[in-house]
Structure formats: structure tokens, C-alpha cells
């Protein structure tokens, strides 16, 4: 086999697109995920823009109340289940985990392509459910019982889609855990593993252990709708609160599925552009595991107003605060990494810095929500909406884009325009903060989330926020246009354009099909620059 042919040029057993969708090459699967997720993202973001437009004026602006309910449900379902949950692990995890470990592929390549097929199947079932039967669900993405049981809209198909997406996620998780345990190259001890891999490892465990619980919960709701069982329906002796517990036992750790690999990306970008070793390698690596573990025991902080006992609420509030410790450990170590480095300001680094800024706002507002006394006031207001968009979009979203700008030259072998990338980032930054910071203010003033109508008092803030959504939308297309242009017409990228030290920078851009001619041997830490490693 000719080792110099890159993965995207190689001749495969199947022609054209089939060479991709039937491929077991982890890099091709990563690209498949990138394209599918980007497509769904445009849909989800467009729905978001329509929602903001509706909120421009009090009363009806462009859609009916029922449509508005459907819009925020579908926006949530698409964004959470189809984009941020698979997001980083599926795109960059697939593409870079084996390369960073010095392996030729993941442990189970066939399961890997199966997980993409399941992802697409689940996504299509969920999306098809919006158009058949009773139409798009209007219960909110959390599918709380008993709304879900009463709603006449098509709940079953989106839930079944989400169930299949869960299976896809479990498969990806167990694949990554096995890969990390079994396929690290000689010399790569656990403490010489890149931090991105550590992030994925922590994530993979949550994927495997938390997904089955939401899977069965959604399945039971389907059973309630289809077979008339009644575990969550109070009229049949069930209890809707149990639904909330089971749902959040998964869905809270799920936000760490989303953010941990994003933090991994930041831990890759910072040492590369500071031209120095990462500060506090072990602290960053182990704090990922700590976040995963503590994060599994905080779910009931979504339910402070449901009438749980005070003891339970105090315990969950306390545990919620504990998560801030490993998160803070990461942030301080990142800043210390920058300190004293010879910093080269390039787009990926700017994304990382924007991530730290926005994620801090997301984190601090999270602390306010985790405090019992303040949560009672801001619960179910725009404050919550602002908070999770700061963590999920401002945090994870920007980390994902940072990762895309960081690894784009490696993935596609092309360089993008630095100037246009910066303009795009600037637009995204301004748009994002205009959109969501005003949500925080509105929520603090008492604007409830998911309401179709509002008092005239809030209009200035709603209008500002809506204008932010337009800027953000322009930024998204600018960014995508920039990258697509680079992919088609960009200059050829070097093997190591940024001076990165991890293994993916030691092979050509784009990587050859087999990744490495010979399995490499690792002597130094992933970010060490001593001992001849440049």
C-alpha cells in the first residue's frame, strides 16, 4: 500500500460518496460527522433566528403561539441531540484521537461507521417526526411528563430518534474508551497522553454510563404514549417527578459530555500558540475526570423548585458548587500556560481566549443558578437561557470552532485567510454577546423563558437581543464561507503550520490513510519542547 496517499484522495472499494459513507477510516467518519453536524446546525440556527424575530415585539410578530412552542422545542432538540452532544467527540474525536495516540484507527472501526449510520437514522427519524402525525412537538426539548403525555403532537418519533442517537453515542463512547486503553503507542503512558484525549476519555465514560438511563426514560415515555402504561402519569399511579429525575440523571452529565472535549481542544491550542509546555498537565487531565464524576451527582439542581426536601436541595446545591473547583483549576492552569509564553496570536488562539472569557460568564452565572436562594428567583427565566447558551454556545461552540480553525489545515491540507477568519470571529463575538448577555439581564429582571408574549417593559432588551441574533447569523455564514473558500481555493498547508508538538503534527497534511508508516514511539510529554522536540 502506498503510504503517501492522503486519506481523502485514496481510492476505495466503493466509488464517490459511497467511499465515504461505507468507509471505516476514522478520518473519513470524522469528516462525515462534520458535514452532517454543520448541516443540522444551519437548520437549528435558522430556527433560533426566527424565534428571536418573533420576540421582536410583544404579542404576535410573525408566528402563532403554537408554532412558537414547536420552534423552541425543535431548536432545542436539534441543537442538543444532533449538534452539541455528538459534536466534538464525533468530529475531532474520531479524526484526531487515534492520530494523537499514535494508532492507525480506533479499536472498533466497523462500530465506528455504524455509529454514524445510527446518528443519521436517529436524526432523520427525529426530523421526519416534525412533519408527520400531529406535527412538531411543542413540549420543550426536555419532554417533561405530563406535557408529553397530554400533547397531541408527534412526540413518539423525535423521542425514538433521540433513543437511537443515544445508542450511537454509547457506541462512540465505548469505542473511545477501548481505544485509549488498548491502542496508545509505545511510550505513551497515561500521563503522556494529550489532554484532548483525556477530555474524550472522561466524556466517553459519561456517554456509556449516562446514556442508557435517558434511553430507557425516553423509551418508557414512548410506551406511555403507545401502550398506555403509566409510570409517569399520575392518573395511573405514576409520578412525573420521577421522569425529571431520570431525565436529568442523564441530561446533566450530558452537559459535561458537551463541554469536556471542548476544554480538551483549548488545552491543545494554548500550549501550541504559547510555544511552551502546558502548565499543570496532571491537574488539567485529572480535573476532567473529577468534573465527570462530580457532574454525575448534581442533576437535581434543575429541580430546586419542584418541592424536593430541603436536605436534598442543600446537598445538590453543595455538589453543584464542587464542580466549580475542577473547572477553576482548568481555567487557572490555562492562564498560567499563557504566562511567560512567546505567544503567537493566530485565529485558533483568539477562539480559545474568547472561549475562556465567555465560559467564565457561563460558569459564574451557573454558580448563581446553583445557589438555592437566587435560583428560586431566576428559575425558568431568560437567565437560565442566557446561562446555558454562554456555556454551550459561547463555551463549547467557540471551542469547537477553535478546534476547527486549529485542525483545519491538518484535516483538509489547506490554509484559510487569517484576516477573514478574524473578521468572522469578531462578528461572532459581538453578535453572541449582544444576543445572550441581554438575555441574562432580562432574566434577572424577571422575563420568563418560553413565553410567547411579554410586557412592553422588556421590549428594548428583546430588540437588542434580536439584533444580536442577526449579527451572529451573519458571523456564522461569514465563518462558514471563509472555511469553504479555504477548503476549495486555500494555499497548501504545511505538515505543522502552528509548531504543535502532539503526534498529529508529525504526519503530512492531510494525513495519509494509514496515519503512520510505522507506529511512533513517544519519549517526551505531549507538549514538552525540550529534548529536540519542536
Amino acid at each position, binding site marked *: 500500500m502506498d503510504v503517501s496517499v492522503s486519506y481523502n484522495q485514496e481510492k476505495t472499494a466503493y466509488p464517490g460518496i459511497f467511499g465515504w459513507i461505507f468507509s471505516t477510516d476514522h478520518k473519513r467518519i470524522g469528516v462525515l460527522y462534520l458535514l452532517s453536524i454543520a448541516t443540522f446546525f444551519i437548520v437549528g440556527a435558522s430556527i433560533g433566528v426566527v424565534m428571536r424575530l418573533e420576540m421582536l415585539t410583544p404579542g404576535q410578530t410573525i408566528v402563532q403561539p403554537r408554532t412558537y412552542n414547536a420552534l423552541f422545542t425543535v431548536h432545542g432538540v436539534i441543537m442538543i441531540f444532533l449538534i452539541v452532544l455528538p459534536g466534538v467527540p464525533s468530529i475531532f474525536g474520531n479524526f484526531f484521537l487515534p492520530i494523537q495516540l499514535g494508532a492507525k484507527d480506533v479499536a472498533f472501526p466497523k462500530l465506528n461507521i455504524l455509529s454514524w449510520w445510527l446518528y443519521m437514522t436517529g436524526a432523520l427519524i427525529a426530523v421526519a417526526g416534525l412533519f408527520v402525525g400531529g406535527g412538531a412537538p411543542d413540549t420543550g426539548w426536555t419532554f417533561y411528563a405530563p406535557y408529553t403525555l397530554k400533547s397531541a403532537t408527534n412526540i413518539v418519533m423525535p423521542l425514538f430518534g433521540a433513543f437511537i442517537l443515544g445508542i450511537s453515542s454509547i457506541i462512540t463512547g465505548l469505542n473511545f474508551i477501548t481505544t485509549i486503553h488498548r491502542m496508545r503507542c509505545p511510550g505513551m503512558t497515561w500521563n503522556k497522553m494529550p489532554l484532548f484525549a483525556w477530555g474524550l476519555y472522561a466524556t466517553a465514560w459519561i456517554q*456509556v454510563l449516562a446514556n442508557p438511563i435517558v434511553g430507557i426514560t425516553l423509551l418508557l415515555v414512548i410506551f406511555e404514549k403507545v401502550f398506555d402504561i403509566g409510570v409517569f402519569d399520575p392518573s395511573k399511579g405514576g409520578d412525573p417527578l420521577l421522569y425529571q429525575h431520570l431525565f436529568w440523571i442523564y441530561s446533566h452529565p450530558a452537559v459535561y459530555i458537551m463541554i469536556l472535549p471542548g476544554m480538551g481542544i483549548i488545552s491543545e491550542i494554548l500550549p501550541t500558540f504559547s510555544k511552551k509546555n502546558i502548565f499543570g498537565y496532571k491537574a488539567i487531565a485529572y480535573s476532567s475526570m473529577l468534573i465527570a464524576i462530580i457532574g454525575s451527582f448534581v442533576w437535581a439542581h434543575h429541580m430546586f423548585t419542584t418541592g424536593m426536601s430541603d436536605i436534598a436541595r442543600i446537598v445538590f446545591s453543595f455538589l453543584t458548587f464542587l464542580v466549580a473547583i475542577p473547572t477553576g483549576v482548568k481555567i487557572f492552569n490555562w492562564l498560567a500556560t499563557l504566562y511567560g509564553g512567546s505567544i503567537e496570536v493566530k485565529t485558533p488562539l483568539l477562539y480559545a481566549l474568547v472561549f475562556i472569557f465567555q465560559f467564565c460568564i457561563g460558569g459564574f452565572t451557573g454558580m448563581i443558578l446553583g445557589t438555592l436562594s437566587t435560583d428560586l428567583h431566576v428559575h425558568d427565566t431568560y437567565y437560565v437561557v442566557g446561562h446555558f447558551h454562554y456555556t454551550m454556545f459561547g463555551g463549547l461552540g467557540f471551542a469547537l470552532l477553535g478546534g476547527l480553525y486549529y485542525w483545519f489545515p491538518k484535516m483538509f491540507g489547506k490554509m484559510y485567510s487569517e484576516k477573514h477568519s478574524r473578521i468572522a470571529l469578531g462578528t461572532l463575538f459581538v453578535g453572541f454577546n449582544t444576543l445572550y448577555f441581554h438575555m441574562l439581564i432580562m432574566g434577572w429582571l424577571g422575563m420568563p423563558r418560553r413565553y410567547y408574549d411579554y410586557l412592553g417593559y422588556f421590549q428594548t432588551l428583546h430588540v437588542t437581543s434580536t439584533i444580536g441574533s442577526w449579527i451572529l447569523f451573519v458571523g456564522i455564514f461569514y465563518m462558514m464561507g471563509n472555511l469553504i473558500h479555504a477548503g476549495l481555493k486555500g494555499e497548501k498547508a504545511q505538515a505543522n503550520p502552528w509548531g504543535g508538538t502532539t503526534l498529529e503534527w508529525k504526519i503530512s497534511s492531510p494525513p495519509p490513510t494509514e496515519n503512520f508508516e510505522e507506529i511512533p514511539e513517544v519519549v517526551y510529554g505531549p507538549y514538552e519542547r525540550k529534548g529536540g522536540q519542536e
Partner: protein
Amino acid sequence: MKAFSPIEKHQDYTGAKMGLWIFLFGELLLFGAMFILYSVFRHWYPQDFHNASRSLNMITGTVHTLVLLTSSLTMVLSITAIQKGNKKLCLTFLFLTILLGLLFMVNKYFEWEHKIHNGIYPGSEFLLAQAKGVMVFFSLYYSMVGIHGLHVIIGIVLLSWIFWEVLKKPDHHSRWDAFLHKDFPGCHLAIVDAQGKEVWKGEVFDDSVKQIHLRVSYHPVKERIHFHDFISLENCGLYWHLVDMIWIFLFPLYYLIS
């Protein structure tokens, strides 16, 4: 690059087992969530659960348990047989396992048919007239036993597939490919023994030889059956035991609490 390197068929016995164990953790949590629901509702409605459990036939339940336990035994025997290189015995026990799995499902079918015939199913008029705890009991009973039954069916499908795999198994090939065409002219191909002595020697290559493909076929003799080749059988076995084990918890929780 070495001139000859076997085409890598990635085989990692420990890795494959690890992957399956992780999957089984997930399965445990899947059922775990339902067991939590069960324990909460049983705590709320102890008397109703007691009453509802009476309508379940303990003898049928015991038969289910015996059938599944026996199938676990035949499963282990089948794996042991292949480890000792006895393919025929392995297939016999595998067949028995599948048969017992089917028997379980048939038994289950008659049990449920009888229940539904008597009007005991979720949403039935009879049940809606009962106490809330009884309704929840049967909601959980049908969900948990139903999902368990689904696992048995998946297990039967997996075992049938593995039966086919074992049946056609030991005929496998290893292939080596080499493309270093500059070096080939003037070489010859040879088979050497452990000391490097040539046992067989081919003709000297001329310029026309650009690639070499070697294929070694293993014939189905007893010595060649190695249990490392049968990781899929072992993994199916582990899955089957998990399904069995979950039934061992379901049985007392539903049939023996009255």
C-alpha cells in the same frame, strides 16, 4: 517500511472483551433505571404490589427461570467446548442455548397471551378500575419484562449469527502484500523453517514482477481452532449471561413478593 508486513487485521482479544464489558455496564444502567422506578413505587404501594403479584403465575415464572438458567449452562459448555477445540460439541451446545432461548420466548408468549385475554394489560378497563399501585405494577411489569424479552430476542439473533460463524469458521486466510517493486528483480521467493533453511524455493524474478501477494490458508484441523479466534462467541456468552442475570432479579421482584 519492512518489505513484507502482514496486512493488519487488527485483533485485540483484551480490547474486544473490554468493549463488551463497557457495553454491559451500560445495559446494567439501562435496567438499573427501571429497578429504581420499581423500588420507588414498591415503597409507595407495598400492599398493591403484593396484591397484583398474586395474579402472576409462580410456576410459569419458575419455568422461565429454569429454562434461562439452563441456557446459561449450555452457553458456558459451548465456550468450554471450543476452547478445548471440539467444534461439534460447541455447535451442539450453542444450538441447545438457542433452543432454550426460544422456549423461554414461547413460554412468555403464552403467559402474556393468557394475561391479555383476561384483560390485564396497560390501559385495559379492568386495570383502570384497580388501585393505582396495581396499575403501576403492571405498567412496570410489562415494560421491564418486555424489554428483557427484547434482549432475549436480540440474544437469540446474535447466537444464531455466531452459530453460523463457528460453523464456517476455521477456513481463514492471512494475506501479505508487498509493493517494493524496485527491489524485486533478481529475488526469489522461499519458505524457510525455524533455522532459516529453505524448505521450498521459487523461481528468480525478472523485471515483470511488481507486486507480491502471499496468502496462507488455514485448514479446519483441530489444532487450528484457537479460543482467541472465538472472542465473538465469548462476548455473545457474556451478553447472554447478563440477560439471564437480569431475569434472576425480575423473577423474585415480580413473582415471589405476594
